């Protein structure tokens, strides 16, 4: 099981951007969504998520506002700004290029 994958900060940013691309969510919802989609194979250190969210807010990628949660409690909702959406697209294509290059390398024979 690869459930102890260490998440580098840049990757976490990308996941958050991807998650928020579907619509505004609060922090807990973001974590739950990542758990669900990865079938709990990716263990995010939850405490690291919030500073990351605030940092992305500072960069202007995310905007936050207080709203009511499913069970009627005050929660801080984050959504992508247009700038965040552009950032998402750019990071995603960068990531995809990296992953395909890495797979090529790892799949190669020793003396190719």
């Amino acid at each position: 099981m690869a459930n102890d994958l260490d998440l580098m900060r840049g990757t976490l940013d990308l996941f958050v951007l991807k998650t928020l691309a579907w619509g505004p969510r609060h922090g807990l919802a973001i974590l739950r969504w990542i758990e669900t989609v990865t079938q709990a194979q990716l263990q995010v250190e939850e405490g690291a998520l919030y500073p990351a969210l605030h940092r992305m807010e500072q960069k202007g990628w995310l905007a936050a506002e207080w709203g009511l949660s499913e069970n009627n409690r005050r929660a801080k909702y984050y959504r992508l700004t247009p700038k965040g959406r552009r950032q998402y697209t750019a990071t995603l294509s960068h990531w995809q290029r990296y992953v395909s290059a890495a797979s090529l390398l790892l799949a190669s024979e020793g003396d190719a």
Partner: protein
Amino acid sequence: MKRLVRLPGSPARSSADVDAELAFHLDGRIEELMARGMTRDDAEREAMRRFGDPATVRAEMERIDTDTRRRTAFRERVMELARDARFALRTLGRRPLYTGAILVTIALGVGANAAVFSAVHAVLRKPFEIPGIGRLAVVRDDFPRMGLRDAALSPLEALDLFDRKELFTTATAVGGEGATIEIDGVPTRASGAPTIGDFFGTFAVRPALGRTYRPEDSEMGRPRVVVLSHRLWTQLSADSAILGTTLRIGETPYEVIGVLPASFGYPRSALYWRPMTLDSTLLNQDKSRGTLITGFVGRMRDGLTVERLGGELRAIAEQWHRQYAAGYANVSDHTMMARSFVIAQAGELRPIVTALLVAVTLVLLLACANVASLQLVRAAGRARELAVRAALGAGRGAIARTLLVESTLLTVGGALLGLVAAQGAVRWVRALELSRYPVLNSLDLSAPVLAYTGGIAVLTGILVGVAPGLRAMRTDVSAALRDSGRGASGGASRHRLLRLSVVSQHALTLLLLVGAGLTMRSLDRLLRVDPGFAADDVVAFSVSLPQQSYTEGGQRLAFWRSFEERLRAIPGVQSVGFALGAPFTGSAGSTMYDLPGVPPMAGEPRRHANQAFVFGDYFRTMGIEIVRGRAITMADGAAGATVVVVDETLVRQSFGRADPIGASIVHGAEGTIVGVARSVKLADLTEGSHPLVYHNYGGVAGWVGSLTAVVRTSLPPAFLLKAAQRSLAELDPSIPIADGASLRERLDASLGPRRLSTRILGAFAGMSLVLALLGVYAVMSHVVSERSREIGIRTALGAQRSQIMAMVMREGMTMAVVGLAIGAGLFAALGRLMRALVYGVPVFDAATLVGASLLLVGAALGACWLPSRRAVRVDPAVTLKAD
């Protein structure tokens, strides 16, 4: 509109937000885990395990939020400023006349300051890029009772001071010499500096090329070495291969061992430096302690001040008089004094520069007062606009900021224009080519000047921006709106400020007018000073005979005789004479004199006289009148060794009404007085009279190898000089002609700095006059338009036109007169700064003061008259209906 970016508002609010966000997370997790069947305790533990350390996370989030808050606030402020700037630009653009007037005023103030400061910088600092220049002190000999002030030291005195390690860490003494050097095959006169002591160490200068020499190189028998200035090096070769080559200075060969950097220039005119050879004559304690040929410069030990050094020096002089009684036998009043090197170098330019600095500061203050009054008048006009903004919710801070941004834009714009103007002024000064002050030819707007200008501009901005800003803060909204829109609230306090500004403008203008008036009158007096000789149509140039090819006195005399004949043969030449020590051509020194058989008169000063050695038809050529007896002429020749002419000053001092002709005089050598000449000015038109003794060169030609030729001719100087050079080449092609210029040019050059300061002060005074008049005009126009209702009522009630005019004029003229009185008071306090610039008139010259006051009052009358005319034309039917 949602302003999400601003969510993290205050620090407290943000901290609460972070808490709420984290609590929401943990609570959500715990509920979720409990829903899966965990006990509350287990769920809490599991949630905390997944989360990590909440304290760390919290701290980091708060750090990020604080940072975000700071950035956001900064960005908003910048945007706000940009908004204000755009708004201000639009506002200013709508009033081109007002904006233009303020821009030009600030440009004048700042530009004048930049230009003057660049001169100050050039004069006081730039020529010497010397580390620790403030620690350098100059030591001078002083003989107050002989009238010989500020004299050089003898090498023996300098050598003694070198040993005073408790005073100077390093020290040097520098002489001056002129020598012929061949540059590109052309023999050229060059000035050089023979030095003793540690010259290069004292000035902390390292060679750009090669090496320098040491104090020991002044001892007899050392190899002759020379260090070149950068300028001479570029003229000779500009090649490092010059090191080790031989350079002939005069006829003596020297080995070139180094080149100094171009930035070093002391003494200013020196093209080379060499060790002065201390031979047995110079080292003779009995005979040479009075050989005052070296300027002493020492680096003071830390903690020593120039004042304390002066005290030490006086004590040292006393000690020398006891120790070397024979050496000081002829002088009873010798002492020494110290001065800072920087001050000593600025020399006669210093008082001028100081006066200009004061004047230009006054101009700046005046410009600020002017701009402030324009802004106050303007603020009255827009009080309603500001009141409306305030009523609509703009805070006082915001309104003040609008005004501040406006005045900042004006100041920066004005300052930039001012720099352009300063650049122009600096070009103009350079174009004057004051050859006597090469330092002024190197004026430019360097980094320190720009920094200074920036500082001045900021100061101006504050001065002109703060007053209106503060006033705006106090604007009473309801009163301003209630008012008819033309008078604002606080009219009384604004009027006080306006009056204050106009009064101070008059006071400052009076100061500048008086200053300019005094320099103009001084220059006028100077131009009328009789120098004692007829300067027109006389060309002077100097010729030096090489010592080694003209060893015998007879040889030299023969040379001068044949040169005189050739010069006289040039068509257009009327007469020819020669002298060492002719006026405005350099000094031939001075000596004590004695009159055997003539007892000193009561109150007679020490018998000390300047000297000159003359040859040929000198007195007639110079137009120096012989008032008694006869002149020294060619006929006196070598035999007339004892023939002496003295001047009227000497006769007045030592003979009174007695007849000096036939009296014997001991002045260096013994002679007989055969004639009395009119006194002449030797180096400066402002100098006082000092006795002068003329020796017959023909009789003492043994030691003088260098003479100035004076030629009375109607030929243009350049033409005469060429012809003279040709005649000289026929005699000896190896000798150059140096320092060729007419006497008129020399006289004019000596007045250069005065002319310059007169013109600059005149320009400043003119500028201030115009500014002050604009100020009065603007303020009085404003007053008239504000009071048009009152004037309308008065007219309706039957007031005469003349009464209305008198009312307006009275108000304007009261301000002018109060300003005059204050200005006169200020001048009483500041006047002494002018002392060095004033000649022939008292500093507190009634005529100048009255003239300047009349000019100012007359101009102010004109400036009040126009608004008062407008007041008279006020139509009561219109103004009264306006409300």
